[in-house]
């Protein structure tokens, strides 16, 4: 669906974006998130406990063709990806927590993805491409580390990098949404309402349940918003890679479709959620008297 050049371009863009995200962080942010690991643990439970369950319920209750149901289950079992970090950044969430959640859910995924699939899809025999998992971590952690170092060396270079990275991220989000539609026009026309529902609501339910779960466990609203985005936003490219490696022919086409459709709608859903979260963040800000101080 995407050519090698486009893939390289996207990878480069994500690298620069994550460089900017990293420049907004300090080692102390990570230390704090690690010092209070509840958020992290809640994230892993939410990621591998709720999401596959949501996927399973929809696969069973909705009238979906079998390839679509399989694709839905696979996407719902994925860890979080860089996209969730970007949206966490824009929603003024806890970016260090988001990055750590992505890292843990990705590493845990090696073991947990087969386990949850065993539970929900009765031993659907999938090939988990370790190189893709490693690539996910590299593309995430190396630029973040470089970004943090840049900021440490020179606050101005850090701030400029962050500015550029976030500007590119906005472009990236718009680019994904806008370029996707014409490339998949026929596919959009052929897709049934039930499939649409599943692809859209997987993200919506994931974000909503992640948020409610985190709030029930009394996480700070900022961390709850982070868990919500991290839960709802899956690493769809990883799902697509797994499907491409495991299945072939028309079966592959059908299963991959859910991943592609999800990728489009999660960007739209997350943008709306981010705007809501930003507003909530502003509303929660302290109201200082009108004098300068």
């Amino acid at each position, binding site marked *: 669906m995407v050519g090698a050049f486009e893939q390289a371009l996207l990878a480069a863009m994500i690298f620069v974006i994550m460089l900017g995200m990293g420049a907004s962080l*300090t080692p*102390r942010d990570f230390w*704090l998130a690690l010092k209070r690991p509840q958020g992290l643990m809640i994230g892993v439970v939410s990621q591998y406990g709720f999401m596959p369950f949501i996927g399973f319920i929809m696969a069973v209750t909705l009238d979906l063709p079998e390839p679509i149901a399989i694709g839905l289950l696979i996407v719902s079992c994925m860890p979080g990806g860089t996209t969730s970090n970007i949206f966490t950044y824009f929603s003024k969430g806890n970016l260090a927590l988001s990055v750590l959640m992505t890292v843990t859910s990705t590493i845990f995924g090696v073991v947990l993805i087969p386990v949850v699939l065993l539970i929900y899809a009765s031993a659907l025999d999938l090939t988990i491409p370790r190189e893709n998992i490693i690539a996910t971590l590299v593309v995430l952690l190396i630029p973040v580390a470089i970004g943090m170092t840049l*900021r440490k060396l020179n*606050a*101005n270079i*850090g*701030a*400029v990098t*962050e*500015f550029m990275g976030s500007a590119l991220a906005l472009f990236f989000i718009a680019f994904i949404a806008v370029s996707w539609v014409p490339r998949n026009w026929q596919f959009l026309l052929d897709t049934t309402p039930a499939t649409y529902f599943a692809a859209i609501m997987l993200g919506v339910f994931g974000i909503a349940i992640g948020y409610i779960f985190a709030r029930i466990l009394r996480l*700070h609203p*900022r961390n709850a918003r982070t868990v919500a985005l991290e839960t709802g936003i899956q690493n769809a490219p990883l799902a697509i890679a797994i499907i491409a490696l495991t299945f072939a022919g028309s079966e592959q086409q059908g299963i991959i479709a859910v991943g592609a459709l999800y990728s489009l709608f999660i960007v739209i859903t997350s943008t709306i959620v981010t705007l809501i979260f930003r507003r909530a963040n502003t509303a929660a*800000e*302290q*109201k*200082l*008297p*009108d*004098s*300068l*101080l």
Partner: protein
Amino acid sequence: MEDAARPWRAFYGPHVRPEIEAASHRTLPDLIGGVAETYRSAPAFTCVLPNGMNGTLSFAQVDEMSDALAIYLREVAGLGAGDRVAVQMPNALGFPVAAFAVFKAGCVLVNVNPLYTAEEMARQFEDAEPHALIIIDMFADKVPMATRGHPIPNIIVTRVAEFFPSMPRGIVGLVQRYWDKSVAPIELPHIRLPDAISAGRAHRARDHVEVSDYGAHLEPDDVAVLQYTGGTTGVSKGAMLTHANLIVNMEQTFELIEGLEKGKEIALTALPLYHIFAFTVNLLGFWALGGRNLLIPNPRPLSNLRRAFENYRITWMSGVNTLFNGLSNETWFLDTPPRHLKFASAGGMALQAAVAERWEGITGKPLLQGYGLTETAPVLTFNPLGKTRAGSIGVPVPSTEIACLDEAGHPVPQGEAGEIAARGPQVMKGYWRRPDETAKVMRGDWFLTGDIGVMDADGYIRIVDRKKDMVVVSGFNVYPNEIEDCLVTHPGVLEAAVIGVPDAASGEAVKAFVVARDTGLTQADIRAHCKEHLTAYKIPKTVEFRDALPKSNVGKILRKDLRAAELAQTAAE
């Protein structure tokens, strides 16, 4: 008075000079140049924006630029010694350059609140009659309105990211223009601050002008700053602070601020420099100490301070109750309290004991309260390090006498309440062109503060009341007369009275009592009307509509009755 009458000296540390016999420098230009010689290339000021973008000037750079700007003011703009120069900007790198240039040019600095409305600016300009205005571009759109009656011949425009490296400066400029839309085109003829500095440099090279010539005739007793304040009647007037007032007060304060090392400190300056507390203590005090000053243009919301706390090892900060209280409620601040802070100083408004306690719990470092007024440059008392007393404004700083007087002007017996009067080298020369107003607050060489205090046997002072009707909103003085004058210009308002009421966030808040001409008038109407004419902090937070206001026999509105009723009601709740 004898030494016996100054029991507070027992609380001075072993290195504190009880009397400042002679100030370290005669005039501010001497001080500025002398300090720059010592610390040359060390960073003096770093302006930190909310996203972490920053610009830094060294001691030598500030010295050289302010030299050049002083030459511009005198040679190009044609100002003479003693001419007033208004400076109107938030904390930014242009501020120290502009303020120091004014002193070096032998001129008088007029600090103007950048958030003032055009009307408020006009009133101050009419009184001070500045020959030049150095203003931030964000607020320059108010200048045509503010100077309609009294044009200011020279206008110099600066910006928030002035003297930043080109990349962040460019980004900030683009964001301000196209995203925030906070910079409007400037209609009046003007020159940009860097261009004015360049013009001054060119002049220096060509005509071999010596900046020191401008300051040669300055005397310690010459006026350096006109610091505007409302006073009892609310008539805005400029307190004439001399070179000696400012230098001595900075030294008096730093005598008691022990534990800071020359050339090693990093101060957070989130309070605005146009306010006398930050001006004397942060700007002048940390310059003299060879410290690095982190200038925060806008501390609201408080998350704007986060990058400054993350990126710099802040060792000292000043603030008002509101700031310390606000920071104590920010999650990020609780998560990562500053690790290198030695202590913090509070002034401007009463520091609440609960706030101080909470702050000290979070940072593990003391929060010391001081007290002073615009008219006293400003510091009169401070709590000595390690000997703080909750709820007290501390003990008099060196070379300062404090007495509590009765109505007749005699000292009250120890332990009884009286009006706080102060005598010392920091007391202003008087109000600018208002001898009548000066006479009201001076009794011989004693300055009457209008605050009612009690002095303990050992010299610690507590404020118990205020004689004036003034309201202090988060460190800013609000004068009821000014607000009432504004209220009655609304066609729907028959009569109005304004008082201060206790407020959890700002210490005190402005409350208006209004007798309406028509019944349809709402609080929102009143506030909207005020917003057109007054700075935000002066706008009544609440408006209560009444059928009548309490009045004396001669028809004077009794604010004290309204205040008493209000306090009784609060107590009942």
